[in-house]
């Protein structure tokens, strides 16, 4: 089972390298990327400073795997990558990187929309929003 988790934030250099690696795959005509960024939400009087992500990692990786399989069945993709942070990610840093590539743009666009929604609902990842005074609130996807 592929491990989709990365410790801490996903660096922009990692995203750049992922794009560069696809230059040899010349049957691709379109890449679609979604990046999730930790937002500085205000909770009552305090602002979010970071999110500490935890997960049932084995189940989450299986779940990512299943979502990949379903997405490949539904859309005509050349390749697809999913990376999610675990541990501490500060506001403004990237916590989710999904990358789908196809011959033509529509398939990759639709695939990413589907993928991100599936991830939000089905993958057992938990987020503790750490506030500026080090108190915390558990986050919940809407």
């Amino acid at each position, binding site marked *: 089972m592929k491990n989709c988790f990365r410790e801490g934030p996903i660096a922009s250099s990692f995203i750049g390298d992922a794009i560069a690696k696809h230059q040899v795959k010349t049957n691709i005509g379109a890449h679609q990327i979604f990046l*999730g960024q930790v937002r500085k939400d205000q909770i009552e009087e305090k602002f979010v400073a970071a*999110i500490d*992500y*935890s*997960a*049932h990692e*084995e*189940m*989450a990786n*299986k779940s990512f795997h299943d979502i990949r399989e379903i997405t490949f069945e539904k859309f005509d993709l050349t390749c697809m990558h999913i990376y*999610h942070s675990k541990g501490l990610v500060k506001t403004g840093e990237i*916590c*989710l990187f999904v990358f789908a590539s196809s011959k033509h743009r529509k398939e990759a666009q639709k695939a990413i929309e589907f993928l*991100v929604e599936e*991830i*939000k*609902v*089905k*993958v*057992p*990842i*938990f*987020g*503790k929003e750490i506030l500026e005074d080090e108190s915390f609130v*558990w*986050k*919940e*996807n809407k």
Partner: protein
Amino acid sequence: MMVKVLYFGMIADALGKTEEEISFDNSSKEINLKSFFNSHHKELENLNYSVAVNQEFKEKVIIDDTIEEIAILPPFAGG
């Protein structure tokens, strides 16, 4: 029989532990997982969670020796 139960996120916080072994009656009767856990840990009654048996979401289950783990999962926050 004893079954390994895993707790995550706010549930682990509320119970003050991330895992434990719980004893179940070894009968062929189907149990409602939420009723079982809500009465086993009163703290869970007012919390929102789902249950996964062997990493698959389940509401009811027959406890037998195919069960390797039960996970109590609070609301998801990935993405």
